[in-house]
């Protein structure tokens, strides 16, 4: 495994921490909201209840009073027997109903001071009562509005119901006291403690918090166990498996999550499927690569064998100075269907072959081997008529030619001593000829069909004559049909131009010039067809001087 491919080990705690913390946060928020709503509801109900009972006490206390005597008491500050009796009953009521105070007084016209008539204080508080006629100047501004409301409407106080001050939680009730004519002559105030409420509320909050904490702990534990079993552990398994597979490319053990009904199961099955697919691909690619290498090695040998079949040692006839011959073949693939050949039939006759099997690659190469061998065999038997050589080759090649390949052949047989010769063209390219001091030109004439096309073809042949200094150039369609990146053909005209660049050059140089010109034209485009060329320069019987 290369370093680039190595998967960096990262902490896999992340997922479980996020999921559980999220769950805990939700539980905490929910229980806080529940507790708060419960707390508020609880408080509201109890406050209302306490306040109602404070008003009940106030109503009861009101029945004890004799409002007709209020002004007399305040004017004289004298307590009579009835006063004392009422005072006693109010004191009893205060203690019995667990009130802090019950007082009766008169408010001044600005609602800033209260002058007390009766004032009962719960005995447990340990305060002294305000005496009859005592005026308290420091009326809480919060009371003022209420006092005004009570006096003006003769009804209840509208607000200032609850207080949670230092003296403990309490609720207040305020009522107007009217005389027989219905005139408001004073007010009665009751302050009742809410100690029970305060305690109960604290208890409630404690309970809720405790229960919420217990539920939170249990829920988090259960949830994380569940989460771990159904999600986190399978994901860790899958992650580890994927990481392992990325490292060593070996099939591992089965994943537990494969049987899961959730998406995790799908993920696990996909990972497993992907693993087996990749294993299979690797297997296939390994086999294909091995096969390809084997084929490639065999093709290399085939290329070598094919190259060895063509005469490739130059100068080919070091002891003959009547002519100079040179030929090349560049297959487009490893092996090609083109071939050239030249050999001496006897001391005075040189046979030259340029041929192109239809198709490319191995099938064409196999056909080329047969065609080349048959043509050479028939010619070397002493047959000096190219048409007859081709006819015999045609008969043999047509036998069992199921692949229906055929081969275009130019076959020329030159009498070296005279320069006279015969040539047959079985569907091949036009040869190019340069007379001494002239220019290369294509020799165009009607050709015979290609070899191996049909049984019993009669091939045409014609005479030609070379004079000292003449140069003959034969080639396959790979030259004229070389194609550049824009799909443009090289064409016969460019080939002739290339040949005429240096018409006096030796065959070897000529071929190199044409090849270079083709390569420059084609550029980066891939070679599409075999490129095969043969050049012959004739010096005459006298030889090259």
């Amino acid at each position, binding site marked *: 495994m290369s370093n680039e491919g190595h998967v960096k080990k990262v902490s896999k705690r992340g997922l479980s921490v996020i999921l559980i913390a999220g769950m805990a946060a939700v539980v905490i928020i929910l229980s806080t909201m529940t507790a708060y709503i419960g707390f508020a509801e609880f408080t509201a109900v109890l406050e209302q209840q306490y306040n109602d009972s404070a008003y009940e006490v106030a109503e009861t206390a009101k029945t004890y009073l004799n409002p007709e005597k209020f002004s007399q008491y305040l004017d004289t500050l004298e307590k009579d027997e009835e006063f004392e009796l009422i005072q006693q009953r109010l004191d009893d009521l205060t203690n019995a109903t667990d009130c802090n105070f019950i007082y009766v007084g008169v408010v001044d016209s600005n609602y800033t001071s209260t002058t007390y008539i009766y004032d009962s204080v719960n005995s447990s508080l340990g305060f002294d009562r305000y005496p009859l006629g005592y005026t308290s100047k420091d009326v809480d501004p919060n009371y003022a509005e209420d006092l005004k409301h009570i006096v003006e409407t003769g009804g209840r106080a509208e607000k200032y119901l609850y207080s949670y001050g230092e003296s403990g939680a309490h609720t207040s009730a305020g009522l107007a006291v009217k005389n027989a004519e219905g005139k408001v002559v004073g007010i009665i105030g009751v302050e009742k403690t809410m100690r029970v409420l305060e305690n109960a509320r604290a208890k409630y909050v404690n309970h809720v918090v405790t229960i919420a904490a217990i539920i939170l702990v249990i829920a988090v534990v259960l949830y994380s166990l569940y989460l771990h079993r159904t999600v986190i552990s399978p994901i860790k398994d899958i992650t580890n498996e994927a990481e392992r597979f990325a490292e060593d490319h070996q099939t591992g053990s089965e994943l537990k999550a494969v049987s899961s009904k959730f998406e995790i199961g799908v993920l696990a099955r996909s990972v497993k499927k992907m693993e087996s697919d990749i294993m299979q691909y690797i297997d296939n690619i390994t086999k294909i690569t091995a096969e390809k290498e084997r084929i490639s090695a065999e093709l290399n040998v085939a290329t070598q064998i094919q190259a060895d079949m063509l005469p490739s040692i130059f100068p080919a006839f070091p002891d003959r100075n009547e002519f100079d011959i040179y030929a090349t073949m560049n297959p487009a693939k490893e092996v090609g269907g083109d071939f050239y050949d030249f050999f001496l039939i006897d001391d005075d006759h040189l046979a030259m072959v340029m041929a*192109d099997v*239809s*198709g*490319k690659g191995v099938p064409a190469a196999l056909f080329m081997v047969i065609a080349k061998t048959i043509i050479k065999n028939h010619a070397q038997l002493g047959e000096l008529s190219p048409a007859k050589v081709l006819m015999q080759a045609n008969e043999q090649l047509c036998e069992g030619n199921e692949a*229906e*390949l*055929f081969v*275009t052949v130019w076959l020329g047989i030159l009498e070296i001593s005279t320069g006279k010769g015969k040539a047959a063209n*079985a*569907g*091949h*390219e*036009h040869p190019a000829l340069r007379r001494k001091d002239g220019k290369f030109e294509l020799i165009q004439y*009607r*050709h*015979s*069909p*290609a070899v191996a*096309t*049909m049984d019993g*073809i009669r091939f045409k042949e014609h005479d030609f004559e070379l004079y000292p200094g003449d140069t003959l150039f034969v080639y396959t*369609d790979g030259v004229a*049909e070389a194609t550049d990146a824009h799909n443009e053909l090289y064409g016969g005209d460019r080939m002739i131009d290339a040949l005429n660049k240096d018409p006096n050059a030796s065959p070897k140089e000529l071929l190199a010039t044409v090849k270079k010109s083709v390569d420059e034209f084609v550029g980066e485009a891939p070679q*599409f067809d075999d490129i095969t060329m043969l050049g012959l320069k004739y010096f005459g019987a006298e030889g090259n001087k």
Partner: protein
Amino acid sequence: MNIIKTQNGENLTVKVEGRLDTVTAPQLDSELKASIEGIKTLTLDFSALEYISSAGLRVLLSMQKLMNKQGEMIVKGSSAAILEIFEVTGFIDLLNIE
């Protein structure tokens, strides 16, 4: 390359448009082989054919051999350039060119 086939009973006319080269020849070969059953006259219309390579010639040769057994094959409408290829390659002697 485009291949347009028109069948009229035992007569099949196949119009070939574009280039018939190494890449497209196998396509024409399989198209023709799949459609000549029971055909007595196969007419190849080359009026829109731009180029034919040796691979294309091989398809023609192969079809000519098949049609020799069951009827005839006619090649018509070839342009001057195509005719020249037929002439140079000697196919002019092998095919029935109109």
